[in-house]
């Protein structure tokens, strides 16, 4: 490849004068030196090299722009590689970007030099800026240097765990690149793909499936667990991803579900019935299995199959033609026949799009219309040809119109065809005549009308039209005569007419057709036939080959039927043919002569000559060119080309018996949890405890290991059965609970608390002893009603958040929220229940779904999985001075951080201002004036204070979004008379809000935030500081975090996230005697290091 490219490029340099470079013209003016060097390539590049070597960014940029111009034009710029590659470290973004572009183009040819740049990319992969990480990975994976395969593999593995979905998307794109470079890595790559497939971000989904399709399309088993998620996410995935996903799911559906049209009686069951309750479905499924597949059982669509079809349907309204087409082919291949018709309307809409789109859509419609006439019949007129359509579009429209013709519509179609025949586009006119022939052959009612029309066309002035008509008439006559042998005189006049024309028509195919016809039906025109032969014989040598062959045929046939008149003529023709230049004709003549005019020893065949030549021949079948196209999947390249394209995968046939549908049962379908799905609730309680919490954060980053464990757990057991039985019981329970709750909310809250503890204990059990878990679960469930005594004693080690979701499901009331919020820090340390599991301020949402939605919103994109924002464990009392009494002319302002969730915006820190007027006259109209803020920062003003009396003190609350920086917020405080510029500086600890998380989650997140994101240090603690109470107090003073219950002794963990970006902040303190090892992990490095410093100070100080 490399040498090839080089060859080509050098070729180009010779071909074209260098002055035609894209860059040249524009840059001459700016760089006078370049023009004089234009005649010499080598020197010109020298000049570019010089520019690249300077340390002036604008010169470099100029040079890079010109080089990119060369690359764009396809000129060789590879000799500049060493000079360019140096600039990969450039600080200027545009230079860097252009260098990246250059690298991807030439690295393959200059592998050794390309290696120089690798370390830069590796460093960039650790950059805090996600765009830089992503583009580094893009280039690293695009440079196609086999030596770095291990580095690529490592980077991909790391990047698919990245916090940023954008980086993960890039990682998904990098997978096929690596695969094409080294296919042996397939197994490793499949692991990565598996991980990415489980990603719940819509941004990643499409790219992950694309990687799957390119690397391991045969591993359909990887899809099972993600199937429902994909279906549900589909609408939100970007359009290009949608195309890929739908195509993949089409194949999936063809392998996993049974044919919906298996028995032609399709049970039209409403969707509601399908989704009425999962319980029912499960039962039905079970019944199916139990019944051992009796043949007459009505078809019931698998709910997952229905899910796919239902979720794809809205995409028919996509603006992207490819998406619409993808849905259309899904319906065509996988939907019950009755529903396919729906897609027609949308396809018709696409016809008004660009002509290329029109072409592809029409060819797909042509295939569909062969099998499903009815689908497009109402849109017949949309296929009428406009005179301005390109020829290939016209032909396709014609094809479709022909396919659509029925007894009722044919008359309008034929009338339309008549106008097409006069078209100036002769190819199209000829195709129209063929189309008329096809209509005539398929619809017997109009055959005669068509024949008459065609005969009239034979007197047309245009030769192509005439020729085409002759050929079509021949075919039609042949078909008719096979149908009705009894009427030999039929169409005599047509044949006579054609025989007369024989000498005027010059198009070989038409002449041949006429001759063949006269020979075949010579009995109907006994007088004319010999004469035609005579004329032909006269002109034999000037005819085309195809006509010569037919003359021979005619001669032979006539000789058999009417040897008296024609024998001599026949011999003459044979003699002419004997010396023909074409061996085919010579052979034919020789062969015929033996049969027709046998010599001395008559061959055994001569007797049968008549039978051979005048046997009734089967009529040709006029059918659509698109008849067999449907062997290819619609909307594919192969379908358009009508041949198998490289990499085309056959669309599999539906299986006779559907494979086990339970393989997809891993996930609880979110959308329906609230409506009806008691089973799902049940599952949450049993196996999938952590899942509800996970589900909430739709956009969460990682799939946790727990999750997988539980999935396996579910898979392995027959849980579905048992849970089904239990679920009705459960329903009663929850109803009862609700009743109780209405009466005595207080009692309820207590009970829920109990239950929660109990749940968590179960959780521990089940995760520790997988095998026995099932029995235990059931036991506990049966005794759900009685509060278990172990409530307080067991520590809620994990799954706190999942319980939160549980509680929400059970209509958490305010009272519960209160009790838990009020728990003081001390209790939290004991670790019985960590703070308030339900997010503060959210407990008043009664609708569980809504609550889930809300929490998913608050979690946003960046933070990790099962974390919920919680109440602060400590409220600092420290106040800071904002405005001095002296400078403020008597007005003094102090502020403190309240650590409450700001009511203005989740991203804001609440700042409480205390304004005191110590002057001797009232201060009027205190408000915030101009703000001088760094980008990204926001301030929500406190309401204007109209009158601050003498000696009065007023508090006001404002919100400030510091955008996770340590930059102060500077703004003016205005009074009626004056204006004071003030500055609020937030210690990093105040820009954090506490989040709950389980310890394993903590550890995992901490593992991810290693390297540059980790800050650690040790401190010598004052002796009195070493107990847990003080440590946590010290931490709380500094930062608004919450303790994570930890099972490790002497290690204390705290978690929070930054207010603005939601980046996780993880603090761990490991105590070793008087020494404490502090570790702060945060994506935002500045925050991490500042926080560490503050913590150190706090730890070492004595009370």
């Amino acid at each position, binding site marked *: *490849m490399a040498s090839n490219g080089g060859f*080509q490029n050098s070729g180009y340099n010779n071909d074209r004068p260098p002055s035609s470079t894209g*860059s040249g013209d524009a840059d001459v003016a700016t760089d006078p030196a370049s023009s004089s060097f234009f005649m010499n390539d080598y020197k010109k590049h020298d000049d570019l090299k010089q520019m690249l070597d300077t340390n002036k960014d*604008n010169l470099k940029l100029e040079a890079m722009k010109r080089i*990119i*111009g060369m690359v764009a*034009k396809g000129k060789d710029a590879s000799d500049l590689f060493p000079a360019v590659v140096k600039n990969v470290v450039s600080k*200027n*973004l545009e230079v860097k*970007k*252009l260098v990246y572009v250059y690298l991807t183009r030439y690295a393959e040819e200059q592998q050794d030099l390309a290696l120089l740049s690798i370390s830069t990319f590796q460093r960039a992969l650790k950059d805090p800026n996600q*765009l830089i990480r*992503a583009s580094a990975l*893009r280039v690293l*994976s*695009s440079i*196609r240097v086999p030596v770095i395969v291990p580095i690529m593999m490592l980077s991909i593995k790391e990047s698919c765990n990245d916090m940023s979905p*954008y980086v993960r*998307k*890039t990682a998904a*794109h990098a997978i096929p*690149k690596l695969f094409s470079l080294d296919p042996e890595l397939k197994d490793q790559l499949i692991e990565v793909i598996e991980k990415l497939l489980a990603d719940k971000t819509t*941004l990643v989904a499409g790219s992950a499936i694309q990687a799957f399709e390119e690397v391991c399309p045969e591993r359909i088993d990887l899809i099972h667990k993600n199937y429902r998620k994909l279906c549900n996410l589909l609408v939100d995935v*970007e*359009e*290009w991803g949608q195309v890929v996903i739908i*195509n993949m799911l089409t194949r999936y559906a063809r392998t996993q579900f049974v044919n919906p049209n298996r028995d032609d009686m399709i049970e039209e069951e409403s969707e509601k019935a399908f989704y009425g309750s999962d319980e029912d479905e499960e039962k039905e499924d079970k019944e199916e299995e139990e019944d051992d597949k009796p043949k007459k059982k009505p078809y019931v669509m698998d709910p997952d199959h229905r899910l796919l079809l239902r979720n794809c349907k*809205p995409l028919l*309204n*996509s*603006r992207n033609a490819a998406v619409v087409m*993808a849905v259309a082919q899904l319906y065509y291949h996988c939907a019950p026949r009755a529903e396919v018709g729906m897609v027609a309307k*949308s396809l018709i*809409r696409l016809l*008004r799009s660009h002509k*290329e*789109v029109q*072409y*592809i859509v029409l060819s797909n419609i042509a295939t569909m219309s062969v099998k499903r006439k009815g689908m497009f019949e109402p*849109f017949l*007129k*949309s296929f*009428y040809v*406009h*005179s*301005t359509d*390109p*020829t290939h579009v016209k032909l396709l429209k014609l094809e479709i119109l022909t396919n659509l013709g029925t007894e009722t519509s044919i008359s309008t179609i034929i009338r339309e065809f008549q106008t097409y025949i*006069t078209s*100036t586009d002769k190819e199209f006119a000829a195709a129209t005549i063929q189309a008329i022939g096809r209509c005539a052959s398929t619809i017997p009612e109009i055959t005669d009308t068509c024949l008459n029309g065609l005969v009239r066309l034979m007197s047309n*002035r*245009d030769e192509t039209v005439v020729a085409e008509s002759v050929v079509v008439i021949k075919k039609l006559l042949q078909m008719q005569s096979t149908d009705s042998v009894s009427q030999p005189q039929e169409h005599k006049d047509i044949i006579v007419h054609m025989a007369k024309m024989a000498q005027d028509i010059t198009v070989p195919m038409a002449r041949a057709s006429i001759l063949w016809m006269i020979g075949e039906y010579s009995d109907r025109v006994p007088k004319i036939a010999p004469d035609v032969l005579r004329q032909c014989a006269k002109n034999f040598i000037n005819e085309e080959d195809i006509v010569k062959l037919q003359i021979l045929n005619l001669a032979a046939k006539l000789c058999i039927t009417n040897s008296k008149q024609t024998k001599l003529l026949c011999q003459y023709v044979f003699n002419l043919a004997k010396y023909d230049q074409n061996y085919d004709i010579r052979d034919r003549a020789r062969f015929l002569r033996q049969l027709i005019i046998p010599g001395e020893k008559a061959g055994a065949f001569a007797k049968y000559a008549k039978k051979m030549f005048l046997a009734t021949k089967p009529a040709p079948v006029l059918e659509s060119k698109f008849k067999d196209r449907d062997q290819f999947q619609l*909307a*594919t390249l192969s379908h358009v*080309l009508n041949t198998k*394209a*490289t*990499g*085309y995968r056959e669309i599999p046939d539906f299986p006779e018996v559907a494979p086990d549908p339970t393989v997809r049962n891993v996930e609880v379908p979110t959308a329906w949890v609230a409506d009806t799905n008691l089973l799902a609730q049940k599952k949450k309680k049993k196996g999938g405890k952590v899942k509800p919490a996970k589900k909430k954060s739709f956009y969460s980053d990682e799939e946790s290991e727990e999750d997988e464990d539980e999935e396996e757990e579910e898979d392995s057991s027959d849980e579905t059965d048992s849970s089904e039985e239990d679920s009705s019981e459960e329903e009663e329970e929850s109803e009862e609970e609700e009743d109780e709750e209405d009466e005595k909310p207080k009692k309820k809250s207590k009970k829920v608390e109990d239950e929660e503890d109990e749940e968590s204990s179960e959780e521990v059990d089940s995760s520790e002893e997988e095998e026995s878990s099932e029995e235990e679960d059931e036991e506990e469930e049966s005794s759900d009603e009685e509060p278990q005594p172990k409530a307080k004693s067991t520590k809620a080690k994990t799954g706190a958040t999942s319980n939160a979701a549980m509680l929400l499901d059970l209509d958490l009331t305010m009272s519960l929220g209160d009790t838990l919020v009020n728990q003081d820090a001390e209790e939290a340390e004991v670790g019985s229940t960590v703070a308030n599991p339900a997010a503060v301020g959210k407990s008043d949402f009664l609708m569980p779904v809504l609550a889930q939605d809300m929490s998913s919103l608050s979690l946003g*994109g960046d933070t990790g999985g099962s974390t919920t924002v919680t109440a602060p464990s400590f409220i600092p009392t420290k106040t800071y001075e904002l405005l001095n009494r002296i400078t403020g002319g008597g007005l003094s302002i102090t502020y403190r951080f309240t650590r409450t969730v700001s009511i203005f915006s989740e991203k804001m820190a609440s700042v409480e201002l205390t304004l005191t007027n110590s002057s001797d006259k009232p201060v009027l109209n205190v408000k915030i004036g101009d703000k001088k803020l760094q980008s990204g920062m926001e301030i929500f003003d406190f309401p204007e204070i109209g009158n601050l009396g003498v000696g009065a003190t007023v508090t006001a609350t404002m919100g400030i979004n510091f955008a996770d920086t340590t930059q102060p917020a500077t703004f003016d405080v205005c009074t009626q008379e004056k204006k004071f510029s003030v500055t609020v500086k937030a210690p990093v600890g105040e820009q954090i809000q506490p989040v709950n998380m389980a310890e394993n989650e903590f550890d995992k997140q901490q593992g991810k935030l290693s390297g540059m994101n980790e800050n650690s240090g040790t401190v010598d603690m004052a002796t009195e500081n070493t107990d847990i109470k003080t440590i946590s107090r010290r931490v709380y003073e500094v930062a608004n975090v919450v303790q994570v219950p930890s099972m490790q002794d002497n290690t204390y963990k705290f978690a929070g996230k930054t207010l603005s970006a939601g980046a996780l902040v993880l603090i761990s303190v490991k105590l070793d005697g008087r020494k404490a090892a502090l570790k702060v992990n945060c994506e935002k490095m500045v925050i991490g290091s500042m926080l560490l410093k503050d913590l150190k100070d706090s730890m070492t100080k004595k009370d």
Partner: protein
Amino acid sequence: MIHSLFIINNAGDVFMEKHWKSVINRSICDYFFEVQSKAATPEDVPPVISTPHHYLINIYRSQLHLVAVVTTEVPPLFVIEFLHRVMDTFEDYFGDSSEATIKEQYVVVYELLDEMLDNGFPLAMEANILKELIKPSNILRTIANTMTGKSNVSGTLPTGQLSNIPWRRTGVKYTNNEAYFDIIEEVDAIVDKSGSTVAAEIQGRVDATVKLSGMPDLTLTFMNPRLLDDLSFHPCVRFKRWEAERVISFVPPDGSFRLMSYHIGTQNLVAIPVYLRHNISFREGSGGRFDVSVGPKQTMGKTVENVSLEVPFPKSVLNVTLTPNVGKYTFDPVNKIMVWEIGRIDPTKLPNIRGSISLQSGAPIPESNPTISVNFTINQMAISGLKVNRLDMYGEKYKPFKGVKYITKAGKFQVRT
């Protein structure tokens, strides 16, 4: 998926190439040229061409061929749609997508192409995201950049890329907040000799230019949403609400975009705003007569403007000598196309053109009369009768300026004679 892209002008110059995977020699374009040479017009080049090892999927737009090379099975519409989006983006960035513009802006073009695809799979196609990544250059910014040393390339990931609404960037600010909606309908029709309509459809679209600060949430309601039965939406439109309430509810992208397009099919009754009275005849020997007049019909009192007729005469026609009573006509003797520019139709004085056709001597008289294409524009009317009821904005406090414009145009409006 998409391996390489070649941009070729009408003269057959490959003036730009971009490879997303390993380099493919541009000699691959020879296959394309071969097919192109067989086609009568550039439009007739089939969109998909198969070569021994590659497949060429091409589009023709703005006098340019964009040829994408793919090596494996891929949905062809995927590629075609992508290529058109590329052109859309160029138009959005540079105002047009002609060869000259692309050559002039090659750096931005190249950067855009690089950003759009990664390994042949679309990475960032949304205009708002691209504009944040690579800022469109204009004179002001160029000056500012040279002064400050900043570049057009952004160093941070556009906010849209990660959000649920990738089409809108955050932190939009305008001093004048305005939202304009153009409802444009094109009538495609075939009218036969006798003046009766053979087929007529309406292709409508709602193009919006929204310049609103912050994160506005707009709701557009129609007086008669029932008319709309087959439509496609910009991804910003909440489809659920449309299905349930028949309102268009959306958080708009910043700038110009196509909010929706709709199609009113042949089954519905479509009003035809103009009629043609024609008398075209050819006579053996001398030539022929040509007499056409145009008049308005069903225009709901609006004037028909920008009317023009295009008549492609048969090849055997040598010349035409005509006298129009309104407007002027031109005859292209090479392509044999006569164009009559009428302008607005004054109902009191119906435009008419008449005269004689001279035929090549000896050539047989044409057997069919030409099909006349008609162009027109009618302002302030949507031929389907669609009307916007109101536009509401939620989520922001200011009062935006709102405007709606209706235009009806001729699409493929043809009269067979």
